[in-house]
């Protein structure tokens, strides 16, 4: 039975390669080679840490712990990335839970992600195996670390599978995604602390001293404990690791048995909608814009897929300039967040999957089509304006950088409106399907459309920058000639942005009306994912 699971997984892993021909297959292979070369580089870097044992131990202890957390959280954020480990798919097969569990473990170990982990762990084993005589123990520990990652990850995801089958559960997954993002920002902020040059090293050592008592930490320190003859400590570390592995295995088996014999509640509904009192009517550009913007405004808060990105980029726009720019000039770093705000108007026709048919039936003329584009645009522009104003105000106050505020405002509004304009046009010119199963906040494309998604995303960033160029020119003058030029940027940025938006709304409406059925066919693919 293990062989059946292994061959099933192998076929799934290689199916993408088998399905492609010619140049596409060549590029896929080149991509994989580059990826493995990159992994090889990381592995080599890790292995060379054996020259610095004092550094190797805390770094790899921390790495092991982060790796384990990554394995456990990833399925919660992106459940369904590996269909061979979804227990619901095996519920009707006449398999004993023990057989299924061993089979699923085998499946879990076959794939690009586990192999990449194995390669990196090999480098860690070489770094930990000092002297060479303890290398076999280090390799065993690395193997145990991979097993621990896989087993604990599957135990957690199996326990969550019932929850993640419901829409409310997936909404929760998005909240976890936001939490991870905030933790990441906090982590970057801490290690970037410029006040103490040794903060990073000291912090890692302090963290590692605690982590060595955790299962992944115990596995990382075990070779060193054996090499230095600390047998009691080594025994304790081995017990911690093995006990964790045993407990994770037990947890997985219990969760598996439960998930195979109980039906998850899929009737758990959301909070009911409030009463809507919108009275705008879709007559003319303005009326249609108000109707569409009214719906978008409701969904902006109600739909986690729309709300979470706004919360993330609000944090990013305010915090990121602190991380990348020291002192004055940080106000200009708000531009990145401004472009992301504009990006929220992107892929307007793909957000609802095949639900677009409702608009195809009602938005049928040029006037309404323009109204729709502007309605979606205004839903990005209004909150984006608030985010930009707050971020620039925070930077100006924190860095005492008031003279640059007009120029920064000009660049940011130009960039945001430019990104909105590009996002609108690309929505019609380069639409792409968005997964409608909402399994992950970070899964923004469907198989076969990743190229389109990437091109559309890059295109709107380019559009934002291009429209901001007149304001940028004025900023250069304000920094090199006279700060008064900053006021010109404040005029040029929004002016160029508004002109771009007016032109883009007309072009988008025309393109949408010409291609509505083709756009519908492209975005409907999101229903299947």
């Amino acid at each position, binding site marked *: 039975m293990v062989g059946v699971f292994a061959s099933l997984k192998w076929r799934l892993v290689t199916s993408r390669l088998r399905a*492609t021909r010619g140049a*596409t297959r060549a590029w896929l292979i080149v991509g994989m080679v580059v990826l493995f070369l990159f992994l090889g580089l990381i592995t080599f870097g890790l292995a060379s840490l054996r020259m610095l044992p004092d550094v190797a131990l805390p770094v790899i202890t921390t790495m092991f712990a982060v790796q384990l957390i990554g394995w456990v959280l990833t399925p919660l954020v992106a459940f369904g990335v590996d269909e061979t480990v979804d227990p619901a798919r095996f519920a009707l097969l006449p398999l004993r839970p023990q057989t299924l569990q061993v089979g699923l473990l085998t499946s879990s170990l076959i794939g690009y992600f586990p192999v990449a982990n194995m390669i990196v762990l090999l480098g860690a084993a070489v770094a930990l195996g000092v002297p060479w005589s303890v290398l076999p123990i280090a390799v065993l520990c690395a193997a145990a670390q991979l097993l621990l990652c896989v087993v604990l990850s599957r135990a957690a995801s199996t326990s969550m599978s019932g929850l993640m089958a419901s*829409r409310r559960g997936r909404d929760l997954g998005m909240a976890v995604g936001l939490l991870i993002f905030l933790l990441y920002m906090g982590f970057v902020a801490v290690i970037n602390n410029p006040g103490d040059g040794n903060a990073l090293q000291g912090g890692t050592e302090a963290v590692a001293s605690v982590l060595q008592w955790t299962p992944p930490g115990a596995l990382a320190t075990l070779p060193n404990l054996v090499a230095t003859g600390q047998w009691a400590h080594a025994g304790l570390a081995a017990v911690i690791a093995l006990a964790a592995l045993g407990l994770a295995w037990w947890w997985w088996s219990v969760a598996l048995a439960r998930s195979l014999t109980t039906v998850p509640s899929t*009737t758990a*509904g*959301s909070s*009911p*909608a*409030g*009463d*809507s009192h*919108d*009275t*705008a*009517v*879709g*007559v003319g550009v303005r*009326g*249609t814009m108000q*109707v*569409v913007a*009214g*719906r978008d405004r*409701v*969904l902006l808060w*109600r*739909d986690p897929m729309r709300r979470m990105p706004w919360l993330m980029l609000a944090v990013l726009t305010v915090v990121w300039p602190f991380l990348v720019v020291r002192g004055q000039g940080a106000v200009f770093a708000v531009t990145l967040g401004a472009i992301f705000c504009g990006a929220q108007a992107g892929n307007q026709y793909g957000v*609802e*999957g*095949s*639900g677009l*048919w*409702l*608009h*195809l*039936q*009602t*938005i*049928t*003329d040029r006037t*309404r089509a323009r109204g729709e584009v502007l309605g979606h645009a205004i839903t990005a522009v209004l909150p984006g304006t608030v985010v930009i104003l707050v971020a620039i105000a925070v930077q100006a106050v924190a860095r005492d950088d008031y003279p640059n505020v007009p120029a920064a405002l000009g660049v940011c509004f130009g960039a945001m409106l430019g990104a909105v304009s590009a996002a609108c046009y690309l929505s019609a*010119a*380069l639409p792409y399907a968005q997964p*409608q199963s909402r399994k992950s906040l970070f899964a923004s494309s469907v198989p*076969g*459309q*990743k*190229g*389109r998604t990437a091109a559309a995303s890059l295109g709107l960033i380019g559009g934002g920058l291009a429209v901001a160029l007149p304001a940028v020119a004025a900023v250069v003058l304000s920094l090199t000639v006279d700060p008064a030029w900053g006021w010109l940027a404040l005029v040029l940025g929004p002016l160029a942005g508004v002109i771009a938006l007016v032109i883009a709304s007309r072009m988008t409406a025309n393109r949408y009306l*010409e*291609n*509505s*059925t*083709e*756009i*519908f*066919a*492209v975005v*409907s693919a999101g*229903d299947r994912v």
Partner: protein
Amino acid sequence: MTTSDQNPLSATALPSYPGSADLVRSVVGQALALRGLTKSFGGRPAVDHVDLDVPTGSFFGLVGPNGAGKTTTLSMVTGLLRPDAGRVIVAGVDVWTDPAAAKARMGVLPDGLRLFERLSGPELLSYLGRLRGIPAEVVSARAAELITVLDLDDAGNKLVADYSTGMRKKITLAAALLHSPAVLLLDEPLEAVDPVSARIIRNVLHRYTTGGGTVVFSSHVMALVEGLCSHVAVMANGRIIAAGELAEVRGSAASLDDAFMHLVGASDVQEGGLSWLGSSQV
């Protein structure tokens, strides 16, 4: 970039159709007229030069086995799928030359497509009605009446995402009726719907046709079509193989089901074979 990443939007021009205003004039009295409607996928014809007339005020059933081309035909009629060739006239308007006027005259209930899932039923109706340019108070009054008639009062402000299949069909039907269209185009409206909801939907459709509206609906449930429809068209392999009044299509067969089996050339399961079935001792 894979081959499927290539831009599928290259074919932007409308297909060229034969005839012009003459065809529109010649189909007066027909709620729906199809002429030479054709669509192929990957070189394989899904709908093959279909001609069809649906009289105004009729309850018209489009029947056929799975894969016959019913959904493809209705998708082209409703403007969701661009035909390779042919013309579609709905209530005197060519769908592909004047889509705005045509879509104002039709109400659509497609099969298997999503709705705006995060809106409640009343919000969905309000949004779509106002988007069609109907004043808010009129939309509100009509939506309330439709929700009551379709027995969706209990759903309250529940999001559409939490609706059952029957409720989804009913709210989509409400959206299709909201602007009082001349023609209703329904793709499998009673598929996977519970008996209570099915009865309600049937009653509403009857009231609609009694008021002069035309219903075109696809189904592969013959008994349903026989019980509801005044006219029927049988479709197989992308072609219409029989069309007309129900009695005419049924002919001398005992039921529409029998007539259908005869028309599409299907036969009952033959005797012999499957001898192992039911003998498992495991």
